[in-house]
């Protein structure tokens, strides 16, 4: 694609983002459709969002979104009037000690994962294939989202029991033997399902569980490849180029064209949708670049000193997430991660982020990938 064509696509994407911003702000701040939280917040603002948000950049007028606002109830204060009467889910993050952060969802997780589904190569994620969800269970978005993704693609999803809050407690207590046993317990469940004749071809797995599963299968004389897995999606800041290389070279038995096993990383959280990656290849040094599902969500890489200022391409900054759906509005949430700003490209003609890792100021106090 020529530079001019890419520029044109980028302009069009920007126009769609501006239009989505206006629509979503109008929805959340109008008395007839907005949620109690934002309608109340409107009174504290020094501007009128209904009149003074005309494009995406106008979101800078909002104060930084505090995820602490999501702790505690009532959860109904986040449900927009426009969706009154619909069945509502609540998804939680954290919660090992104290009150977890909670986000209400109606259909967003389905929409996000349907969009994601269209990015998956059918060759490795065959339509109609059954899936294994090797990740946290309980009040997590991931559990239902993966199941929906599988169903959307015509399959049936098998799950395991995994309580991440207990895992965190085991680590805090220093009960490392219990931690090992719990991990084995999870892997045993997965191996049982995978070897029970359910014709599972695809899976979601956290990086640590994927590693443990591969080892567990090999100890039983088989492998990820041999049990018939062809498509894996995974995610998190542990998903580094080196990690991907390790998976490809040592867990899968080579790149997809050789091993028949394809893995795609993703990036996201309960507040935002799911950012997809550019295809990851050895030739590109296993570089991982994520692109948000614009215009429903935006990922920006902003200056450490000024969260309203994006850094130049290739430069390092903190990751800022924005969610723009009629279910949920998050105008600029500072994620606990940093990375480098990436150029738009053909498939995603907007900014991306690469090299995602824990924000250096929090890194020492951040526990990543405990399960």
């Amino acid at each position, binding site marked *: 694609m020529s530079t001019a064509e890419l520029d044109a696509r980028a302009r069009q994407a920007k126009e769609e983002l501006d239009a989505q911003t206006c629509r979503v702000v109008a929805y959340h701040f109008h008395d007839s459709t907005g949620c109690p939280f934002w309608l109340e917040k409107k009174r504290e603002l020094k501007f009128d969002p209904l009149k003074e948000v005309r494009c995406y950049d106008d979101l800078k007028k909002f104060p930084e979104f505090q995820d602490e606002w999501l702790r505690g109830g009532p959860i109904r204060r986040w449900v927009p009037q426009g969706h009154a009467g619909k069945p509502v889910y609540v998804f939680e993050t954290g919660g090992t000690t104290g009150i977890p952060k909670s986000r209400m969802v109606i259909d967003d997780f389905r929409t996000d994962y349907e969009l994601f589904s269209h990015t998956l190569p059918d060759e490795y994620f065959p339509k109609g294939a059954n899936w294994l969800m090797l990740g946290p269970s309980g009040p997590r978005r991931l559990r239902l989202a993966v199941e929906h993704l599988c169903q959307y693609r015509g399959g049936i999803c098998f799950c395991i029991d995994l309580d991440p809050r207990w895992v965190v407690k085991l680590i805090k207590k*220093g009960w490392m033997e219990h931690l090992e046993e719990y991990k084995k317990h999870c892997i045993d469940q997965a191996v049982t399902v995978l070897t029970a004749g359910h014709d599972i071809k695809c899976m979601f797995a956290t990086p640590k569980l994927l*590693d443990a599963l591969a080892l567990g299968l090999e100890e039983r004389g088989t492998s990820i490849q041999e049990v018939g897995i062809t498509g894996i999606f995974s995610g998190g800041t542990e998903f580094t180029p080196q990690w991907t290389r390790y998976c490809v070279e040592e*867990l899968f038995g080579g790149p997809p064209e050789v091993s028949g096993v394809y893995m795609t990383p993703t990036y996201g959280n309960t507040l935002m949708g799911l950012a997809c990656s550019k295809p990851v290849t050895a030739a590109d040094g296993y570089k991982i670049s994520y692109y948000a599902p614009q215009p429903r969500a935006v990922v920006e890489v902003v200056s450490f000193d000024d969260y309203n200022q994006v850094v130049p391409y290739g430069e390092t900054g903190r990751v800022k997430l924005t969610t723009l759906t009629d279910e949920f509005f998050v105008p600029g949430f500072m994620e606990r991660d940093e990375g480098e700003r990436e150029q738009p490209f053909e498939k995603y003609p907007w900014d991306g982020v690469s090299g995602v890792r824990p924000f250096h100021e929090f890194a020492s106090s951040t526990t990543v990938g405990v399960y």
Partner: protein
Amino acid sequence: MSVLSMPALRWGQPYESLEVNEVRHFLSGDVVARISQVNGGMVRRDMRQAGKARDILRQIPIEELLRKAAVAADLFETAELPMGDGTQTPEQFVKQQSATTGLPEVLCRSNITKNAFVLRNMPQILEALTRGLDPKILEAGYGREDRGVIVSYQAQTTVLGAVLPSNSPGVHTLWLPVVPLQMGLVLKPGGQEPWTAYRVAAAFQQAGIPGEPISLYPGGHDVGESILAACNRSMIFGSAQTVAKYAGNPGVQVHGPGFSKILIGDDCVDRWEQYLDLMVESVYSNGGRSCINCSAIYTPRHGKEIAQALAERLGPIDVLPPEDPNAGLAAFTTEGTAKAIWEMLQKDLGQGGVTDMTAAYGDRLVEQEKVGYLRPMVVHCASSEAEIAAKEFMFPFVSVVECPQAEMLGKIGSTLVATALTEDKDWSRQLVTATNIDRLNIGPIPTNRLNWLQPHEGNLIDFLFRSRAVQMSDEMFAALG
């Protein structure tokens, strides 16, 4: 100083990772080395082949491995050895180790000598560790002792895993005997002090010991956890919290704070001036960083005078550039650490009956642009109840604690090295039977002076082997050879 790129070693094979840790000079911030980082999964996968390490080494008789270890000693001490994508002379090793750890060069040099001594004198060290057992018995797993009895030592592992520290290069002597004992080494080098592990591996290889039995896995916490989980026997160096975490785990030997002490008896205390040099050396040697440095002196009387005399000797010691031959203090290279320790000390010093005897010798906290230092401290405690009396810090620090001799054993708590200054036979017998003292010196021996012909902390033989019964007929014994 040229920048070295150092790969991980997976069973002797170099592995260049896409993730590298840039190890920097503690003052200038310049990159000194780029170290390939692996992940815990790699360790666990590689450990499935751990049996090979011992198989390869068992093809070489222990006596030959001991000879090769002596050759490695010379190479470690004097040779230019292959190191990553370059080479390393002993002088470069000293400069690099000092640059990344903040240790004075003179201490780095003395650690070379110490490690080389242990490698060179491995036959005597093994004799000390095994209490005179014929190495052939370890080699075969059984044998007949001089008294005519068949004994058997069953190896409990094929490799020793070790999660190595960054702050005390002297501790490497603990794992050096492993390869001569025909077991593999699985090491996670310290983040700031990768140097010793890499140089020992290079020296072993140059001395003709196969590379396969040695793995070096630089990386994050998950690498350490994987080593401890995947190796049947491993050692880790860390804080009191680390010690608590692995207490009771028979597969993990934890080396934490030593809380080493000098105990002065009623019969010797009136001659305390005679022991002043011994006390200074026990507190100040190796920058006060070792677990065998003395952190408390218990005395039945004259406590204030002893503390004052120590303060006069230790208080004036100042920070010197790392290359200065008189430098004796190591930097705290993690920003804010020295200050945080100092603030912790301030709280302890606020307790009643606690006096900072070094206060008159200038500020203890020395903050520089990127690093901090703590100058030696001597604190007088009127009672053993003072909380600071039971603390140990990573710089020359000692509490002089007033405590009646009869109460000392009940008050000192866990003690790695105790030097008892006494000629009192009854008290000596009590000290010998005390279970809270590991290494006991009776008489004027500084706590830091290890006699290598004595087993040291956590006898490696007891950890790696299990003495068990084997019974067989004389005919079978002769047939097995």
